[in-house]
């Protein structure tokens, strides 16, 4: 049973659209009811990657609105609300009900509505005498955004800043942890699994893990819990493992330049909720959808960019060949002769040709789309020499050192300010030991290019405090795999630009956790099992045994590089395993640097002590 988060979330949403009534064979409710859908901004982001308007129509939704929009009455129609449970939404619902905008209100909250808000809702609608209009109130536990079958995000902004803020108080940290736990709980509820939780000691990961464990325990004790797995003795082979990590485990991934297709499109062109806007070839902006329905994107997302270009070329040639084939078959026989026997053959060909036309058109559209994207990417890459950045950063991270002139050459060469800052930070992270004079020359070069160095200062400070962000490197140094990497370092010059040779610390750790064999890196990781009674703490062997499925969660922000790396891992493994990757938010390199800059400012680096910025 492979967990497909996207499919499960879509099922829940469709059920919600059908007013939570059972669906018959054709996937629509028995009763034909037309309804109106109302959502808030957060829930719109949940719905957009999953459901198209034509799917809405199929389930009887005629109109769809944002809750903040000024809406007019549509009297005899039920309304389905899908919103977050907060005060302003509740007030808006009360206002709508008082104005009798719709016939009945089916309220669905993306997570659990807290009791006080429910009371507000009740008293508000009671006093406007519209309480009879509220037909249903549901907690949907869908408070996360699923972008691909195995990729989700909690869409919680700036969690890295908030968690690492030196001035943050206990209460604020607790609130953030609570929010993350709510999001993770929704994910687990939608998948209907209670996993074994593992996390490194200390830091936000441990806080989230223990809070989540507690939440699951409390929930399982209640009467109608959402997890109806059969029995508490289900072997851990069936249960997945949930690995929770903190961003500081491996900071370089969030900052570095990567040269594979998917990370490039996200980082350079700004992919948001599976949607991309680029300059079209004839001028004017074009908007593209990039998700699992795009076969080229699915097949080639992990390829390096030059290979992608080759692949586009190949697809184009194949398409041209197929079109010629169709033309040949139908164009030649232009229907001059109509003897009986040939006719059926001709018509069959004609029918095949006609039937294949839509498919051919679609293929052409996909090819055109990716040609356009690749062209725009190429011009960006050339202008900023991103290939050089990616290669040199990769070299630095593998070797742990870089030639000084090369370093300064990059900082003075092509690329945006952010590119240079990212390069400098990757340099900092990759260093085994800080060479003060080199660092100073780097700083000078940055200042020359008028780069705001707050982020750099922050990372320098963290490194000097020996915060575990360096663990990615040191771990790799002490590993058995060390000698293999030394060989890589020697042959790196000869190899092509292949950043996939370097395995991320995250991937390595997840592999070790899934295998369950003793491994110095993970042996001191904590274990939580929400199903077991509290007394037997995690030394039972079945809790560490090999896992076929894993859910990996990164607190503080993740990106397509990590996602891609995990997908590569499971494709390599025998037997085939399955990993779902999620994070608090999906960040480009620039966005993460902005958070580092904020932290740098808070610590007093940068020009002045800035006001709190969240």
């Amino acid at each position, binding site marked *: 049973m492979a967990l497909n988060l996207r499919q499960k979330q879509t099922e829940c949403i469709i059920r919600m659209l059908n007013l939570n009534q059972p669906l018959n064979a054709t996937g629509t409710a028995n009763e034909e009811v037309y309804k109106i859908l109302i959502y808030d901004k957060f829930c719109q982001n949940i719905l957009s990657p999953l459901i198209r308007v034509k799917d809405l129509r199929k389930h009887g939704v005629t109109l769809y609105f944002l809750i903040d929009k000024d809406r007019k009455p549509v009297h005899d129609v039920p309304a389905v609300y899908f919103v977050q449970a907060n005060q302003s939404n509740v007030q808006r619902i009360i206002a709508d009900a008082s104005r009798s905008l719709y016939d009945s209100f089916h309220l669905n909250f993306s997570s659990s509505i807290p009791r006080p808000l429910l009371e507000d809702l009740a008293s508000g609608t009671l006093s406007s005498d519209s309480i009879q209009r509220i037909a249903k109130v*549901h907690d949907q536990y869908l408070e996360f955004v699923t972008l691909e079958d195995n990729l989700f995000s909690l869409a919680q902004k700036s969690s890295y800043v908030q968690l690492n803020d030196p001035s943050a108080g206990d209460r604020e940290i607790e609130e953030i942890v609570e929010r993350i736990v709510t999001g993770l709980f929704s994910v687990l509820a939608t998948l209907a699994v209670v996993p074994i939780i593992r996390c490194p000691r200390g830091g936000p990961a441990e806080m989230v893990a223990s809070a989540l464990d507690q939440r699951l325990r409390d929930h399982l004790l209640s009467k109608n819990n959402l997890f109806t797995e059969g029995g508490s003795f289900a072997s851990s082979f069936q249960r997945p493992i949930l690995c929770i990590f903190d961003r500081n485990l491996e900071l370089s991934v969030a900052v570095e330049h990567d040269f594979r297709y998917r990370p490039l499109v996200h980082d350079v062109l700004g992919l948001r909720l599976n949607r991309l806007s680029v300059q079209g070839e004839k001028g004017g902006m074009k908007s593209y959808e990039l998700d699992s329905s795009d076969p080229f994107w699915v097949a080639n997302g992990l390829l390096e960019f030059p290979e992608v270009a080759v692949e586009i070329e190949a697809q184009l040639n194949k398409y041209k060949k197929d079109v010629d084939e169709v033309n040949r078959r139908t164009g030649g026989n232009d229907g001059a002769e109509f003897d009986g026997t040939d006719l059926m053959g001709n018509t069959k060909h004609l029918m095949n040709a006609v039937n294949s036309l839509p498919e051919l058109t679609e293929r052409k559209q996909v090819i055109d789309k990716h040609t356009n994207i690749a062209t725009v990417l190429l011009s960006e890459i050339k202008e900023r020499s991103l290939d050089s950045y990616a290669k040199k950063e990769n070299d630095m991270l593998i070797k742990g050192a870089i030639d000084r002139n090369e370093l300064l050459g990059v900082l003075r060469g092509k690329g945006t300010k952010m590119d240079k800052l990212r390069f400098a930070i990757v340099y900092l992270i990759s260093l085994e030991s800080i060479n003060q004079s080199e660092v100073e020359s780097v700083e000078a070069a940055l200042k020359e290019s008028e780069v705001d160095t707050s982020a750099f200062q922050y990372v320098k400070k963290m490194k000097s405090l020996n915060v575990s962000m360096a663990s990615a490197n040191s771990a790799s140094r002490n590993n058995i795999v060390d000698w293999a990497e030394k060989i890589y370092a020697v042959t790196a010059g000869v190899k092509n630009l292949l950043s996939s040779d370097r395995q991320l610390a995250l991937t390595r750790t997840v592999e070790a956790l899934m295998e369950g064999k003793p491994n110095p890196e993970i042996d001191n990781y904590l274990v939580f099992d929400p199903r077991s009674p509290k007394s037997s703490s995690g030394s039972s062997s079945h809790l560490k045994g090999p896992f076929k499925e894993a859910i990996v969660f990164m607190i503080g922000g993740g990106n397509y590089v990590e996602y891609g790396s995990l997908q590569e891992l499971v494709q390599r493994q025998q037997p085939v395993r399955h990993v779902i990757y999620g994070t608090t938010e999906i960040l480009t390199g620039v966005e993460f640097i902005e958070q580092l800059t904020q932290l740098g400012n808070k610590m007093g680096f940068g020009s002045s002590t800035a006001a709190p910025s969240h």
Partner: protein
Amino acid sequence: MASTYRDRTAEFRSLSETLKKIGGITAVHHQQPENDPASAKPLTTTPPAAVAAANSSRSEFNKKASRIGLGIQETSHKISRLAQLAKRSTMFDDPIVEIQELTALIKNDITALNVALSDLQTIQNIEIADGKYSEDRVGHSTAVFDDLKSKLMGATKQLQNVLTTRTEHIKAHENRKQMFSKNALRENPFQHHAKTVTEPPPWSNSSNGDANAQPSALPPIGVQVGSQLRRRLAVENTPSQHMEMSMLQQVVPRQENYAQNRAVALHNVESTISELSGIFTHLATMVAQQGELAIRIDDNMDESLANVEGARSSLLRHLNQISSNRYMQNTMTSG
């Protein structure tokens, strides 16, 4: 499937009961300012009246719409029954009569539904013209209408497919029959067939016109049969033949009768297809659904986007101001 949501309705109801009991005291005594009685009072009186008044008029559209929807569903069921019948039919066990009756029934249904739909549109136009409908209501009605149209179109297409398959079956059976039977029989079906035709074969004309709508299997068949028919028509199309034929028909052996029935069935099927394609194209011109196939929910964000852009630009201006101050401070302190 395990439920992954929690139903809080019961909790909500009990909460409201509790609150009602607590607030019930103040609801009676309006002078007490506890539950904002000033706004509560007029609201409690007007909604029921407004609801009742609107109830009668507004739901006519809905009633009709749901009736049409139900009708389309039933018709779809009939069409699937027809498809099963057509599939079941073999060379000798062909329930021609049943199929023809069912086809006629379905055709009438579809025509009736078509008429009902245009009625619905008139109702909608009248109600809109009355002016008491909000724009959202208009949007809703339009969406309902489009949905029903597309469903009817789907049913029509389905029927067309079934009939096309049926035609192919009949042709296949005919071919097999020709292989087994003698020459005498081969001429007759089409000869008699030709004489019962009082108009040029409809399929040869309309099928060319609706080349896009119909599956491409139809024109060749039509043309093939048509060409044979035309030859016969040209030779023997005189009124006297009708009487001759009717006398002949009575003494025609049972096999020819059977063959004639098959031919008649073929003819009926093909004329039905052509009529349907007429309806089909008529509906297709009305429905403008192409653009919706790939639309996402967050398309057309123009209005909210405008607001966001406005807010963002003002924030940016503010930020520029701040950073320019900082820059000035910087340059002044660093000299």
